[in-house]
């Protein structure tokens, strides 16, 4: 298809299915913690608005969780179907980590999700709060295992190679590999940010349509405080993560910066925009700021870091892609900072809920957290190329022997199916958002009314029929 090789198609297929998947867990992680905060506030302050917001977001959480489970099913098999050489070579490390992720996820689902979604009127408030906290904790534990596995592929250690396969020697070293703490912090905070932006945009949408209920205002206010505090933290973590990458994967940093070679005695400029050309070994149309690259990456005026030409051509990641995916991520991050600061400014004089330009900006920034997450993952994964396990196994040696024709066919099937399935799912989620939080007339949440026996299934927590929001 389009003259792509089987290897490229296998990568695109994996990238497509995992990109669709990651969106749901990211929101799951963020919403679970948000729900824990809301329930904590309800128990503490006893203000109905927190309880009503809890019920509103828990139905959306349920649908989102179900989408994550369905899209995750494919991931458990793709390592074998598409990357069989990787699986037989490194499965002894990534397999146990993946198995622990699955076990943690199912433990959480088996133990606490049912109580959280369906138990509001059946268990005491303390126990229910405990279940919500455990669900939030469970999502973080799941993320920890998956990121340990991915980070090991980026910065492998704690293993040796015996008879051509990886053998774990020290599990502690495997899990706590050099890039793991940074990646875990960066991704978790990214999930929080993406959720805050999603919640904020939902509220902004209602405010723009004239629905300025207490619930909507509380939701927007909480999201903006979160953004204001967390966006700068993310910038700080991102900087540390970059330095860590420079130390362990210098070729990735060179590609991200479009940096080809050093001039003796001179600092490295920061290239704001440009088009890295892999064949010509240069970055075209570069707009540079002198010495800023040195300052950011070495924290010295004239510091130097390796350029792409210091790596053999077959060891270079594609600079054009990661240069731009990185800039999309950072650019969106700057906009998030701006949104947070603007919200603080508007709070003086109580214009936060009235300024239409601000609300429109918040609305448009709704998906930005998720886009930034995808851009960040493209940067780190494509930047790891040509390696699947950095410095240990090349991606071209990892891929199963399927023809380009086969891979194109299944890829098209996946694209069509995902568009219908997740299009419908996301559409349904947005319909729930559009209904808006309802002041509770009675104590029972919508999913608890009138039915004695309920399935403990996430999607059932959402109502079957969603009435459009009153104008």
């Amino acid at each position: 298809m389009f003259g792509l090789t089987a290897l490229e198609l296998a990568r695109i297929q994996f990238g497509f299915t995992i990109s669709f998947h990651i969106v749901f867990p990211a929101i799951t992680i963020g919403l679970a913690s948000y729900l824990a905060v809301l329930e904590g506030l309800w128990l503490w302050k006893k203000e109905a608005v927190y309880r009503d917001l809890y019920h509103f977001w828990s139905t959306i959480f349920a649908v989102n969780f179900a989408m994550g489970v369905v899209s995750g099913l494919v991931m458990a098999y793709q390592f074998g179907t598409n990357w069989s050489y990787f699986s037989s070579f490194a499965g002894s490390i990534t397999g146990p980590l993946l198995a622990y992720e699955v076990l943690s996820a199912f433990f959480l689902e088996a133990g606490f999700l049912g109580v959280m979604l369906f138990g509001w009127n059946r268990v005491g408030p303390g126990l229910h709060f405990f279940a919500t906290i455990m669900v939030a904790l469970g999502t973080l534990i799941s993320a920890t295992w998956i990121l340990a596995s991915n980070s090991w592929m980026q910065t492998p250690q704690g293993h040796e190679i015996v008879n051509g396969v990886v053998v774990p020697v020290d599990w502690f070293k495997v899990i706590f590999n050099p890039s793991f703490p940074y990646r875990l912090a960066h991704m978790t905070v990214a999930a929080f940010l993406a959720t805050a932006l999603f919640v904020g945009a939902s509220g902004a949408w209602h405010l723009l349509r004239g629905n300025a209920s207490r619930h909507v205002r509380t939701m927007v206010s909480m999201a903006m405080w979160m953004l204001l505090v967390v966006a700068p933290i993310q910038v700080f973590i991102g900087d540390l993560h970059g330095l860590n990458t420079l130390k362990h994967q210098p070729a990735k940093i060179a590609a991200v910066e479009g940096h080809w070679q050093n001039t003796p005695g001179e600092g490295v400029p920061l290239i704001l925009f440009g088009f890295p050309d892999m064949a010509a070994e240069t970055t075209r149309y570069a707009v540079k700021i002198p010495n800023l690259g040195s300052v950011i990456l070495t924290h010295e005026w004239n510091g130097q870091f390796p350029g792409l030409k210091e790596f053999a051509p077959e060891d270079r990641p594609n600079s054009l892609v990661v240069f731009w995916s990185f800039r999309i991520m950072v650019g969106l991050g700057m906009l998030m900072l701006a949104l947070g600061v603007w919200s603080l400014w508007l709070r003086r004089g109580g214009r936060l809920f009235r300024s239409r330009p601000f609300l429109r900006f918040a609305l448009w920034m709704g998906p930005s957290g998720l886009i930034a997450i995808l851009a960040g993952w493209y940067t780190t994964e494509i930047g790891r190329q040509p390696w699947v396990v950095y410095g240990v196994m090349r991606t071209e040696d990892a891929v199963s022997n399927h023809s380009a024709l086969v891979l194109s066919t299944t890829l098209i099937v996946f694209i069509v199916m995902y568009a219908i399935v997740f299009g419908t799912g996301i559409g349904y989620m947005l319909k729930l958002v559009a209904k808006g939080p309802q002041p509770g007339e009675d104590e029972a949440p919508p999913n608890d009314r009138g039915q004695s026996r309920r399935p403990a299934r996430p999607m059932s927590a959402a109502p079957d029929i969603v009435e459009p929001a009153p104008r």
Partner: protein
Amino acid sequence: MGIDLPLLWAMIIGFGLMMYVIMDGFDLGIGILFPFVRDREDRDVMVNSVAPVWDGNETWLVLGGAALLAAFPLAYAVILSALYLPLMMMLAGLIWRGVAFEFRFKADEAHKPFWDKAFMWGSYIATFSQGLALGGFINGFEVRDGAYAGGFLDWLSPFSLFTGVALLIGYALLGATWLIMKTEGELQQRMRALGRPITLAVLAAVVVVSLWTPLAHADIAARWFSLPNLLFFAPVPVLVALATWALLKSLHGESHAAPFLLALFLLFLGYTGFGISLWPNIIPPAISIWDAAAPPQSMGFTLVGALVIIPFILAYTAWSYYVFRGKVKPGEGYH
């Protein structure tokens, strides 16, 4: 330590796969029976009878995949890449029916027939693909230098096409007998009537597979038909005959649960038969569970988590079946 880790893991994965086949079997069977039930209300009852439990059933499929990678990475790599197409079709089918399950309730009237069809086709595709994969698995894989060396369509054979159809019939039996247990009145009568031809078809499929497999594979024939094995394994076919007879009788009997339990027993016997034929290979025809095992560090590390958490999953599963026991009535939906 005297623990045989590969054996223990083979048992865990074998158990997980059986749980999957038994539990997702009857809810896939509901979709397979859709063409025989046209009435909207009856279809709602059918779907509602499995609604509380179906996604827990698929838990075992995800767990099985991850456990296979952790404990037998070579088997995971060879089997999954060799069975690429049937597995991709299976996943597509499962996703399709999984969301159709929910959307057929949540969609507006105009779109409901679409999701009904999606549910039915998803069930058929997922089951048939599993049967194809099973047939391909029994036929074995060509392995060279620790990797799958066969072609893209090696799994496709008259035998695997037959096992594909056989599994459709087998799951239909589980679905029909499940409905006899969970429903009443006219729908239950229809299922009792359908049960008889389906049971006979299952019997025929079992006989054909039992003859075809040893005829095609000399080593499997030797496993079954040499002495003293013949005496040890003789109870399997005898029990199959008895269970089928009892099942046919129970379809017209008083008991609502007996047909389902007997159908489960029948399926369990078939599963045992495959186990006997293939043991101790995890990549037929020649790679054993010990040859394909991950290093002990990997198996031991994962075992701790599996032994702690699987009992929780089992307890939760048992509890959710207990909570939703009894008959499903029209209109008293879970939705």
